[in-house]
């Protein structure tokens, strides 16, 4: 039996580079962020009660729900994992390329690495699309009208503000510069379908993206990014997020950074999994809310 969502939650690290990076970025977000890694704590928080018998029942129901594939909670986690694996693989390659670029014999290795901006943009768009797909997997299509659905999406993103801030800073501003959100559509227009197929996450997600064929998927990605950019732009300007500020926020927890923004982005890609970490926490909360309502 695969691991349940709450088991995944309990296995999350208490203190490592990922947690430090998130803690750093959360200083930019009002309300902050607590690293919940205990299922019991989460259940108590949702239920507003410490009754051990109720906690046990909620836990049991939550495990049952996360094992049922049709409910989508586990599926959302697989999405996050796929994206995370891809991010780490690409990040690792780029770290290698950075090191290898300095060594004369293996310099040619840099030719094989996906270091250009187009691919970074494609990677970001995959993350955004994964976010939307995971949202529908976890929450269904809540409400009866599009306005209800929009409100529900806004509610979800406000709950996951730190998650969104990390996405905007680590995957847009640091690697692509402060104008990233405005340039994104242009960059995505340049992505060719064979480049898309280079991304490991795409291979894992292709079956879940609506439409047939790479071109259809690409247009879905562009449309979902288009919607997200409108929201993300407002979010970034409201919090005053920029590459410079996010580096400074990160330095408060990780330590001083002397390299360029792009190197920092590569470093974060290769050595942290902020996306999957916060993803597990977001899914676990929704799961526990449902389980608490059903016991």
């Amino acid at each position, binding site marked *: 039996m695969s691991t349940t969502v709450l088991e995944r939650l309990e296995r999350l690290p208490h203190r490592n580079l990922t947690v430090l990076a998130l803690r750093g970025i959360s200083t930019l977000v009002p309300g902050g962020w607590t690293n919940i890694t205990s299922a019991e704590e989460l259940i108590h928080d949702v239920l507003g009660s410490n009754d051990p018998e109720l906690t046990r029942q909620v836990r049991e129901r939550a495990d049952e729900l996360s094992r049922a594939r049709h*409910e989508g909670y*586990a599926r959302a986690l697989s999405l996050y994992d796929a994206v995370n694996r891809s991010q780490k693989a690409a990040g690792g390659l780029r770290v290698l390329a950075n090191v290898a670029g300095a060594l004369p014999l293996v310099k040619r290795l840099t030719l094989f690495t996906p270091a250009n901006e187009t691919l970074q943009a494609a990677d970001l768009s995959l993350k955004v699309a994964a976010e939307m797909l995971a949202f529908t997997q976890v929450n269904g*299509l809540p409400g009866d009208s599009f306005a209800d659905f929009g409100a529900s999406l806004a509610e979800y993103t406000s709950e996951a503000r730190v998650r969104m801030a990390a996405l905007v800073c680590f995957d847009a501003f640091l690697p692509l510069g402060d104008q990233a959100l405005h340039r994104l559509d242009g960059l995505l227009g340049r992505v060719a379908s064979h480049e898309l197929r280079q991304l490991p996450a795409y291979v894992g997600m292709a079956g879940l993206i609506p439409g047939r064929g790479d071109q259809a998927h690409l247009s879905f990605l562009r449309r979902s990014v288009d919607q997200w950019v409108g929201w993300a732009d407002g979010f970034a300007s409201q919090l005053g997020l920029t590459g410079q500020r996010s580096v400074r926020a990160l330095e408060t927890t990780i330590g001083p950074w002397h390299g360029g923004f792009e190197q920092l982005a590569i470093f974060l890609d290769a050595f942290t999994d902020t996306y999957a970490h916060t993803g597990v926490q977001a899914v676990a909360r929704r799961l526990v809310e449902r389980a608490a*309502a*059903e016991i």
Partner: protein
Amino acid sequence: MSRRLSWGLGLLLVAGLVIGAFFVLPFRSWLPGGTVADVPNRLVVNGTALNRLFPAPQLGEKLVFTQEKRGFSQARLKQGDEVRALLSISDVTSSPASRAKFSGSGSTLGGWPLVEQGDQSSALLVADRFQVKVIGQGAGLSPDERHELLGAFNLQALAALNPASAPKSLPQAKPQAPSLAGQSPATRSSLAAQPLVAQPSASPGSPTQPSANMLAALKAARAAAHRETAVLTPAA
């Protein structure tokens, strides 16, 4: 060992590993099979039908739907930015164990059995089939406030949702419905406004019509996908 044999063995090993990886590693959770409590989808009321039965928000409050699945719908009652309560309706067909706690219940609300769970949640079993629950969040709600919210759900319409496919609970539901009609308007002052606000999207109807259609189409597509997986499922 001949060269050909060693190549053959090597290829066999690689093929075995690839096939093993395909079945065991990341794809296992994507294979069809298994629902909650193995109940076929058609026996469970869809969450879409439950949305319109939620209480209408009062002045300064906002109702944000957060989850909608088969047999389940949940919304947050917000006041400003603060979440006051989680409101939900679930079909106990997919969680039979939750029905048991109502058998020992002494109190009723609108004729339906009422149960308190812990300090912050109250649950009501309507028509022996739907569990309506209010869970206080943040600063919390008093039991009276929770009961008032429970009474503000459209319980009568909810009881009427119980289809003929579950005949054993129908005889119980019917005699209780008339008494409910008399009682429920008294439970919450704002309830008089309910028929008007039960469908909040009705007033800006014409402009939102196309997007509502889009959502309906999306939902139909999802339902079709569900059917597909149900066909693939050997257990169903």
